[in-house]
């Protein structure tokens, strides 16, 4: 019998599972940078706004400032880490050229997208859960709609994982990639109501905040926990869902066409 013989059976789900496992291993190998550092940063925010300044600030009737700010900080951890995972992993693969290892294999575009996305969601939700755990030392939250909280967190994580893929494909340099985070995501998060409800803003700035997509994600997520928000939950959820769908279609189109992946 010949020892070299092509396998007769191929396991259809194995390419997807392998890529997912590889992506998870990738961020776990550098867990100080990918998990611990964002948890420490969020903990410092919690300490500053929860235990020190928070006691002197009141922005929402019936809730302490710590209670108000914790949902936003949890979501910030979810969002930034989901984005960072897909964007850095795909960009580095492109930059170093080892993306060809995937291009020569039978991995399909949907398998590619979902493996990268699920790994990013796992990292985002791990950081979010850790921040949540630490936040219990600073304030008690009412958890009005816990299932909806999970759905909103997963949706936000999915959305920013797609955005990370898109950014990694469009950026040609590491500098350009960091611009997506520093000049788009971070300002939109900070101005989207993580640290204050937009209802306390002057009318012009309040109206302008409604054009900030981040506002709906943060407001919706906070509302699932505290039960109060600036716009109805269905509006926040619908806006987040629509954005996630739009970005998924965009990422799928780029990856399906091999944009900046295939020569």
């Amino acid at each position, binding site marked *: 019998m*010949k020892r*070299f013989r*092509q396998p007769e059976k191929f396991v259809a789900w194995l390419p997807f599972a392998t890529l997912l496992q590889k992506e998870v*291993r990738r961020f776990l190998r550098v867990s100080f940078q990918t998990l611990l550092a964002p948890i420490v940063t969020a903990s410092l925010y919690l300490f500053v706004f929860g235990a020190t300044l928070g006691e002197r600030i009141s922005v929402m009737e019936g809730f302490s400032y710590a209670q108000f700010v914790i949902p936003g900080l949890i979501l910030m951890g979810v969002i930034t880490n989901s984005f960072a995972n897909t964007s850095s992993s795909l960009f580095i693969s492109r930059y*170093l050229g080892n993306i060809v*290892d995937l*291009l020569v294999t*039978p991995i399909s575009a949907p398998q590619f997208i979902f493996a990268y996305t699920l790994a990013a969601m796992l990292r985002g939700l791990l950081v979010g859960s850790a921040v949540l755990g630490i936040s219990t030392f600073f304030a008690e939250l009412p958890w009005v709609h816990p299932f909806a909280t999970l759905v909103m967190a997963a949706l936000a994580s999915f959305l920013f994982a797609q955005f990370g893929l898109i950014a990694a494909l469009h950026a040609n340099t590491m500098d350009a990639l960091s611009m997506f985070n520093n000049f788009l995501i971070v300002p939109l998060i900070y101005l989207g109501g993580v640290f204050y409800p937009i209802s306390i803003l002057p009318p012009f700035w309040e109206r302008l905040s409604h054009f900030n997509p981040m506002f709906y994600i943060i407001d919706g997520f906070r509302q699932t926990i505290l039960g109060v928000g600036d716009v109805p939950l269905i509006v926040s959820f619908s806006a987040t869902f629509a954005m996630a769908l739009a970005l998924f279609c965009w990422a799928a189109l780029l990856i399906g066409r091999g944009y900046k992946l295939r020569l």
Partner: protein
Amino acid sequence: MISALHIEHLHKSFAGTPAVRDLSLTVSPGEIFGLLGPNGAGKSTTINMISGVCRIDSGTVRVFGHDNCTERCITRRLVGVMHQEIVTDNFFTIDRALRIHAGYYGVPRDNSWRELLIDQLGLGPHLHKSMNSLSGGLKRRFMVAKAMIHKPRLLILDEPTAGVDVELRRNLWDFVREINRDGVTVLLTTHYLEEAEQMCGRIAIMNHGELIALEETSRLLARIEGRHLQVTLEHPLQEVPAELHDLQPALRESGQMLHLVLEAGQGAGAVLRRITDLGIEVGDVETLRPGLEEVFLHLTGKRPDNGQAGGK
């Protein structure tokens, strides 16, 4: 019989500059086929189009009868490719990276094949080292293992022995011959033309994106008739004297080496007398059988390492 690889009217341009022009060729199952050409000839672009790294502008590529674009899932499993450029994922060890690569192809675990590859390529002692601690030669051996891990029926090796030491090079070619005997078709590019001569049953030569020769190796070698005389000169020449132009002269090694072609019946002694009569001092003389390098020079005007042929 279905061809292992059937390329028809393949064309690819980058920013309007053609890299591969109207390339058509067929590789039969079980062949070891050489694809040669100077740097920039279009060999790697062709390989990239076969392996799916590069989009095809026009033309078709069929692997064992399956279209590379419409049946990509099947063709990707049939092809194993080792690219010329060394690319590794520094996050993982050799062991982990090989397991990951097998998984990408959906290949169920086959430890005996994996161990055989590791053994044949001398990767055993380095299995748990991270990629960035490996030498260039080791990385190249790892890339060969990666290309074979899913047991492809068509193995494409783009410069597999560049930077690999002599012993391992010999082991690698022995292994390639062995799996070829087991039915694996091999397409290879190499700058070591003696390797191509020894390994390949047929050879295609590309230049400027076009196919300029495709023949059995023995026929290709027969294109250059007569013996070759390699004369080492005591003092380098700037230009070959006009009196020697009938001998198809080529100056090499910065004018230190004069290469001449002797026609049938022409004696080396008479030619040497002509050289010394011109006042050129001869240091050493060697007669050569024409090899692939001469064919290559004859067809492309370039040495395989992209050096220009020295004839004036």
